[in-house]
């Protein structure tokens, strides 16, 4: 069935179709519509779940941990400052190995106050032990939202997962999606049975207890092993989903890369605009391609090496910045290739921060530098569409 929904609704529908039992949430732009829609589903009797209206995001994720530890399927959603407020609790969720799924309306962090899209919020949580998925469109938000439960709950994984949708560009955009039938999703996910020790007064257990130096490292290593295992489980789930629903997902999606000298690496909604831009360049005979990263944690090193190793220049186009170094994706990609004897030249491009539109002009500026990099040295990190003169002047550098 075709449905016309906003990106936020794709998360709400994913939770409904996954028969999520508890949704603790605190509203924040741009993901407010997720809890709004879910409370509507519950009020209409379309969804049997407990909605917990908490007083902050810190409480939302804490309540999610309590419910998940009790052994029920839990989903929540947040963005930006809300995700940042969850920060310390995120590590508890992953450390306790609870398969919570959280929708993120990817949005910039303050200051200055800004409600619009970039990936800084979830990038700042990349070390929290959560899996991270990024959607190109609302269909992907819905599908990844459903698949995230199956991956997170797999006995070999048991890690929480974030599913990112770009603020406004997806969260507030209406477009058609194929809405799976409830029976198909039931069949795909199976009935939720916790594969872990749960809180049960009849079988007392301590969860999230003290980990002395004698044991702490083993707990951390177990998370590392689970993340490594997740790589395989993600492939399995993506393949099973494709067989059942006919839509193909991969951790990284290469397009037009076979003979490409320059490959753009993208994440999230910019991938669609990039695809259209590449078609234009291809029509001019330019050998360019793209690789879309759908799964950022676990970082798909093997697939990225495979997809990028034959390129001359890899242009990493990203909506985040680690001040004092570079964008996060660039850093990780460069490290992925560090010990390879054959490697492309990596160039980083910072674009689309705080909702600045990523247009064909933006991508042309990126392409020009990438093309130059084929024959000469260029800067490692390139800020695109920015009024540098104004900044230099205000910083007293002129």
């Amino acid at each position, binding site marked *: 069935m075709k449905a016309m929904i906003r990106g936020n609704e794709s998360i709400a529908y994913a939770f409904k179709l996954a028969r999520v039992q508890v949704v603790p949430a605190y509203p924040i732009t741009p993901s407010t519509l997720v809890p709004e829609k879910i409370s509507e589903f519950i009020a209409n009797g379309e969804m049997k779940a407990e909605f917990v209206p908490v007083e902050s995001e810190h409480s939302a994720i804490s309540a999610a941990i309590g419910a998940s530890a009790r052994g029920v399927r839990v989903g929540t959603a947040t963005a930006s400052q809300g995700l940042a407020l969850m920060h310390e609790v995120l590590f508890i969720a992953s450390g306790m190995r609870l398969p919570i799924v959280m929708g993120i309306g990817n949005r910039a962090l303050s200051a200055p106050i800004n409600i619009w899209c970039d990936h800084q919020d979830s990038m700042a949580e990349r070390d929290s032990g959560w899996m991270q998925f990024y959607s190109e*469109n609302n269909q992907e938000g819905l599908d990844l939202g459903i698949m995230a439960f199956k991956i997170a709950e797999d006995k070999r994984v048991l890690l929480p997962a974030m599913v990112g949708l770009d603020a406004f560009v997806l969260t507030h955009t209406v477009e058609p999606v194929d809405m799976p039938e409830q029976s198909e999703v039931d069949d795909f996910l199976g009935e939720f049975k916790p594969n872990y020790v749960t809180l049960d007064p009849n079988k007392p257990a301590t969860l999230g207890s003290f980990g002395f130096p004698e044991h702490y490292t083993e707990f951390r290593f177990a998370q590392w092993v689970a993340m490594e295992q997740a790589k395989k489980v993600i492939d399995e789930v993506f393949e099973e989903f494709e067989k059942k629903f006919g839509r193909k997902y991969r951790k990284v999606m290469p397009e037009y890369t076979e003979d490409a000298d320059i490959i753009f690496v993208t994440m999230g909604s910019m991938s669609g605009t990039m695809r259209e831009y590449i078609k234009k360049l291809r029509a001019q005979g330019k050998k360019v391609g793209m690789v879309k990263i759908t799964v950022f944690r676990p970082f798909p090193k093997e697939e990225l090496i495979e997809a990028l190793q034959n390129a001359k220049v890899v242009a990493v186009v990203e909506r985040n910045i680690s001040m004092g170094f570079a964008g996060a994706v660039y850093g990780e990609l460069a490290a992925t290739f560090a010990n390879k004897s054959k490697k492309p030249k990596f160039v980083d491009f910072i674009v689309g921060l705080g909702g600045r539109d990523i247009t064909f002009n933006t991508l042309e500026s990126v392409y020009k530098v990438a093309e130059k990099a084929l024959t000469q040295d260029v800067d490692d990190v390139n800020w695109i569409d920015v009024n540098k003169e104004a900044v230099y002047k205000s910083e007293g550098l002129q």
Partner: protein
Amino acid sequence: MYEVRFHGRGGQGAVTAANILAIAAVKQGFYSQSFPYFGVERRGAPVQAFTRIDDKRIDLRMNVYEPDAVVVLDPTLMSVIDVTQGLKEGGIIIINTAKKPEELGFSGYKVATVNATEIALEHRLGSQAAPIVNTAILGAYSKAVGNVKIEHVLEAIRENAPAKKEENAKAAEAAYEKTVLGW
């Protein structure tokens, strides 16, 4: 690809109009996409919303800079902003006004007018001070642009209008009949 820009004021329903047009387009077998100008909503302030319509999947995610048509829900906006900004040469302008197209002084564009305010009030949509014109103007869109048929617009309105579904559909139908094409 056909791109439409809606101009309205916060609270007038420009975003809903863009969404309903997108839904109607899908009913006709097109792909579509609609989104608001990503601002901070304030009642009465100028707002924009966009619809893209195509016969193949729409991957483009940037704002609409060169629309094929613009829809103006509130004629007072025309003294505040240039509604033709970026509009393609020969593009269509659909305006809620009692005036005739030739009275508006545009050149190089096709202009269609409809008194959507009057039609909305006749169908008891909104109040004298704040008439809800977003469904009536879609009837005018269908007449002027023609790529999305009126029956699909009416069906989309009946399914998606938040209240007074039938009155909204009737208003769109009336506007379709009463739209004056200046070409």
